[in-house]
């Protein structure tokens, strides 16, 4: 089963850093697995925990939240709020029994196309052995 399992990942990217960084990966023609669908938001600070739960409810096998490096947020401190909020969400998801590998947070700047590529590749590698996410999935 694990062999042809294609994990589905939702990546919430802030517009100013991580989305720009992932665009740079494209401009530089770096290659990463096509399992990720990006959703660009203004700032990592605007990502509500509900988005993350919703993505898992709707069947995502992994969720990534990525913003500017601490101190570099376009809106000064949005990513500090995000960091705190995400830490809580991570604990909660683990408490519920979701494998911790399924939910990741990263800092990717507009210049870090390589880093984004690596994060997605590693994420997919980590998800394949876990198989489909069923814990939070609702039959829609």
């Amino acid at each position, binding site marked *: 089963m694990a062999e042809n399992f294609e994990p589905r990942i939702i990546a919430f990217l802030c517009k100013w850093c991580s989305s720009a960084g992932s665009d740079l990966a494209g401009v530089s023609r770096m290659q990463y697995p096509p399992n990720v669908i990006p959703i660009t*938001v203004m700032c990592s600070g*605007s990502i*509500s925990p509900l988005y993350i739960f919703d993505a898992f409810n709707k069947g995502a096998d992994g969720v990534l939240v990525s913003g500017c490096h601490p101190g570099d947020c376009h809106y000064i401190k949005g990513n500090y709020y995000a960091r705190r909020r995400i830490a809580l969400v991570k604990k909660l998801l683990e408490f519920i029994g979701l494998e911790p590998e399924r939910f990741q947070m990263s800092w990717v700047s507009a210049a870090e196309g390589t880093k984004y590529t690596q994060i997605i590749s590693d994420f997919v590698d980590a998800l394949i052995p876990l198989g489909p996410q069923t814990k939070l999935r609702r039959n829609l």
Partner: protein
Amino acid sequence: MKKKTGVFVCHCGINIAGTVDVKKVAEELAKHPGVDLSEDYVYMCSDPGQNMVIEAIKEKKLDNVVVACCSPTLHETTFRNAAKAAGINNFQCEIANIREQCSWVHKDMSKATLKATKITKSAVEKVRQNESLEPISIPVTRRALVIGGGIAGIQAALDIANTGYEVILVERNPSVGGHMIQLSETFPTLDCSQCILSPKMVEVSKHPKIKLMTYSEVQEISGYVGNFKAKILQKPSYVDPDKCTLCDECTKVCPVVMTDEFDLGLTGRKAIYIPFPQAIPATYTLDIRGCPGLVPIACGKCADVCEPEAIDYDMKAEIIEEEVGSIIVATGYDLYEKENLSEYGYGKYADVLDGLQFERLLSASGPTQGKILRPSDHKEPKEVVFIQCAGSRDPELHCAYCSKICCMYTAKHAMLYKHHVHDGQAYIFYIDIRSGGKGYEEFVQRTVEEDGVVYLRGKVSKIFEDKGKIKVWGVDTLLGKNIEIDADMVVLATAMRPSEGASELAKKLKIAMDKDGFLAEAHPKLRPVESVTSGLFLAGAAQAPKDIPEAVAQASGAAAKAITILSQERLFHSPTVAKVTLNLCTGCGMCVDVCPYDALSLKDGKVEVNEVLCEGCGTCQATCLRAAINVKNTTPSQVHEMIRASLGG
């Protein structure tokens, strides 16, 4: 009424079509609920491509469109303008990025096609819930505030004033001039610093469009681009500048001697003083920190001798409020604190000086009238050791960054020293010589060839005083040899730091600082004079270590940026701001606390958005437990539908 959506999939030549089956994407989208029309075309951004969108909107009476193409950073504006030309609102157009996010990063055609389809469906879901919005228009107060009266602030103020706009220039010291007025001669041309700066200082004080406020500090800034309000504290100088005739009688009778800041502690001054003869404004200041009391019983000597009765002990601090449209911050630098460099004997031995103190020794108006004499015994030093990178480029113990100008001013110091003391010898310890700048490398070469300065590559390991000499032990890493010099004087090229109080000011202004405490520019390459807060610009050494030509260039750049605001009658602000659903809001105030722009406030138990301050970051949206506050056109309901589409139903 059901909304009609049009989808346009771009081939981008083979950039997209090479990896994504664009026809298939268009076919899949045609089946998506709500999509009335779905087409593909070889270059959507070309004129025929844009016309295709415009005609389709008109003919099919589309309510909104999605263009699946390259990154929105490239053509979002193009297609939004096309949508507008077709008679629908700009925000009724969204971009699905299937190039940078898909065709360029994948090779497998069927997988890339599936992904492109999902990305496009997600954009369709978003656009279908977009509100039509018009930019928010705000009037502009057409005056500027410049904070800091060094060369950068002076240049910026003059540039703006000469364009015809009023400027308020705030300097916290009694005189403008900053550090440049303390310098002797300036590399690489060796112009006399005071001679080239003082005419500009005079111009600032006489300019009809400039209101100069010295001995003043900005206490509070509120408002937003185009409409800032500044509260400025003017400290009392206890001397009426209009009456003071500069007779200097007061300093003769003042019994209190204090450290002279202008000469960096190499001399003293009285409690009532003029910082230096060319000070602007040309007047005396009574330094309350030294004065025994502002009543004739406590002392009163200065008032007794002041014939024009310029001294007024009853003068009070004043808070002055000003309204401005843009602000330039030019608060400059200070040198790395003495306490941090005790390993070099700095602050411990009288003859270990910093670069600015050495400038004062070199200056004709300095404490020694331009003679190079040791502070300890007033003898002429015959061997002088200059140490570069004192506190710079040392991430473990001091500052990690390069202070950039020290290589050049140390070369200048060694050269000028030789011009003063012909039989003296100058040694320079260095890590690297960084002399990138017009005429800079040639200048450094001159010090070696004409002035016989000895450059020693290496670090100093020990400095101590011994029988009237300062022993400097080090290693020449090029020759692999130990070096011992019995120096008469040591001059440290200490690191440049953001000026004292810069971080408090940055907080008041809500501008970011970099990891070293310098004010952060909005983009390191493309927006070097802007701060992240719109309407606030940066100039000079406040942003990073800089020499005079760079400080001046940046100041003129900042002035030009400020003028782009002042020259408009109205400004336009993005309308994708937060919006409150009043019946859901409980007035808990959680969002008010997290908003980075203070755009929210509570009124009658509900939260209210100042649409001009709101930058639409969405931090409030993620904080509200009741989904009562949402940024227009990125609402949770939109995001949830995007998630559904992205996961393929």
